[in-house]
C-alpha cells in the first residue's frame, strides 16, 4: 500500500471504528426503528390498505424505509462524528497530518455511508426473508441507493462542519431532514394526496429518491427514472464539490 492509501484507509477505519464501538446506538436503534415501522405500517395498516397501485402495501413501504434508513444513518453519523471531534479537539490530529482535503472529506463521507449501508442491508435481508421483497431493476436500484447514501453522507459532513453545537445537528435532522423524508412519500403515493399537497410533494427532492429506490425494488414509480437519476447524480456531485471547497479552505475546521 502507498502512504496515501494507508492514510485514507486509517481515516476511514477510524470512522467505522467509532460507530462500531457504540453499535447499540448506531446500528441497533435504527434497525429496531425500521422494524417497528415495518410492523406498524406493514402488519397493522397493511391489513386494511392491502394494495397500493396493485402492490402489496408492505412491499410498497419497505423500499422507502430502506432508503430512509440509509439516508438518516449516513447523515447522523457524519454530522455527529465531525462535531464530536471538533468539540473534543481530536480532529486536530487528522488536520495536522499530511492528509489532503479530499482524503479527509472522503474518509468522513465513507464512515456514514458504511453505517447506512449496514443498516439498509440488514433491513433488506430481513425484508426478503419475512415478506419476500423483490428486486425488479437491480441496475437502477444499486446506483440509486449508492447515490442516496453518498448524498446524505455529504449532507451530514456539511452540517457537521458548519455546526458549532449539538443543537445545530439536531435541528437539521429533526426540522429539515425528517419532515422532507416523511413528506416525500415513504408511506403513501403522491397520487393519493389532494391538491395542493400532491404538487407540493413534487418539490421535495426526497420524493424522487424514494421513487428511484421503489422502482428498483418493486418496479413502480411516479417520476421519470432517467431524469431523477441524472438530477440525483448532479446534486450529489455538487454537494461533494461544495464540501471539498470547505475542506480546502478549512472552513470552521482550521482557525
Amino acid at each position, binding site marked *: *500500500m*502507498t*502512504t*496515501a492509501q*494507508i*492514510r485514507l*484507509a*486509517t*481515516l476511514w*477505519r*477510524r470512522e467505522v*471504528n*467509532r460507530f462500531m*464501538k*457504540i453499535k447499540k446506538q448506531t446500528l441497533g436503534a435504527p434497525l429496531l426503528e425500521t422494524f417497528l415501522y415495518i410492523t406498524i405500517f406493514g402488519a397493522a395498516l397493511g391489513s386494511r390498505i392491502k394494495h397500493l397501485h396493485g402492490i402489496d402495501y408492505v412491499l410498497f413501504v419497505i423500499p422507502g424505509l430502506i432508503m430512509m434508513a440509509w439516508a438518516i444513518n449516513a447523515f447522523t453519523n457524519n454530522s455527529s462524528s465531525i462535531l*464530536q*471531534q471538533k468539540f*473534543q*479537539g*481530536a480532529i*486536530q*490530529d*487528522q*488536520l*495536522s*497530518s*499530511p*492528509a*489532503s482535503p479530499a482524503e479527509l472529506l472522503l474518509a468522513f463521507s465513507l464512515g456514514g455511508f458504511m453505517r447506512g449501508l449496514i443498516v439498509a442491508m440488514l433491513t433488506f435481508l430481513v425484508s426478503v426473508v419475512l415478506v419476500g421483497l423483490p428486486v425488479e431493476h437491480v441496475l437502477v436500484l444499486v446506483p440509486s441507493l449508492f447515490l442516496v447514501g453518498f448524498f446524505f453522507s455529504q449532507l451530514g459532513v456539511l452540517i457537521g462542519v458548519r455546526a458549532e453545537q449539538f443543537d445545530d445537528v439536531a435541528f437539521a435532522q429533526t426540522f429539515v431532514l425528517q419532515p422532507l423524508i416523511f413528506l416525500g412519500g415513504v408511506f403513501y403515493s403522491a397520487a393519493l394526496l389532494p391538491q395542493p399537497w400532491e404538487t407540493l410533494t413534487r418539490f421535495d427532492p426526497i420524493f424522487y429518491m424514494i421513487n428511484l429506490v421503489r422502482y428498483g425494488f418493486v418496479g413502480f414509480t411516479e417520476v421519470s427514472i432517467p431524469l431523477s437519476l441524472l438530477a440525483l447524480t448532479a446534486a450529489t456531485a455538487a454537494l461533494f464539490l461544495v464540501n471539498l471547497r470547505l475542506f480546502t479552505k*478549512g472552513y470552521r475546521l*482550521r*482557525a
Partner: protein
Amino acid sequence: MKALDIKDLEKRYPNGVEALRGVSVEIREGEFFGLLGPNGAGKSTLIHCTTGLAQPTGGSIEVFGNDAIDHYAEARQAVGLAPQELNIDWFLTVEETLDYHAGYFGMPRRERRERSRELLETFSLTEKKDERTRTLSGGMKRRLILARAMMHRPRLLILDEPTAGVDVELRLELWHYVQKINQEGTTILLTTHYLEEAEQLCDRIAFIAEGQIVAEGTSGELAERFDVPNLEDAYLALVGRKELSRSHIEMAPEVEA
C-alpha cells in the same frame, strides 16, 4: 539546514484580533529551541500556523525547506505536535490512538505496531494500552499525547507546554526523553511557562509578546540583553513585572533556638 524558517508571519483572526504581527524565527536542524511568552502572546498561534491548524494571513513558513502551505504534506510529515490541550479521541483506546495517528502519516502496519509498543513502554502506558482514553488520568493523557506526537518519528517535534500540570516524575522522564531524541538529531521547539525548564533544555530561546518576537538568544544572552542576572529576571523585565524578581524577596529572619 533550517528545520523551521518563519518569515514575517501574520495571523489576524476574523474578529480582528492580531495574534501574530510579523514574526520571524529560524530554528536550525538539531536545535532545541524555546519559545517563551505570557498567555496570549501568540505561541500557540505560531504553532498552529506551522502545523496547519491555523491559516496564516501573511508571511511564510518553511519546514525543512517545504512551504507549509504549498507543500503542506511534506511539511506536516516532518512535524510532530504535542498540543497544550488534551485533544484525545474519546472513542479510541490508548493503542488505537497511537496506531491511527501513525496511519494518518502513512506508516505501514508492522512499523506502527513496533513503534507503538516501544512508545507505550517508554511512557509507561503498556498496562493501559487497551483502555479507552477517556478513562485515563490527566497525567496519563499527557503521556499519551507526547507518545502520539512521536509516533511517526518527526524530524521536528513541537511541544506546546508539555509539562503543564504534570507530576515531577513525568516532567523529569520527559526531560530525559526529549534530551535523548534531541541528541539523536530531532529538532525540538518547546513552549513552556517553566523558565528553569527552558534554561535547562534549550540551546536558544525567543521571547514573544503581543504577537512579536522581542528578543532571541541563549539564556545568558537574554539575561545580558535585559541587564539582569538570569533568564527569569529577563522574562519578568519583558512582561514589565521586575518587582516580582526573587532577588527582591527579603529573606525570612532566622528563628533563634
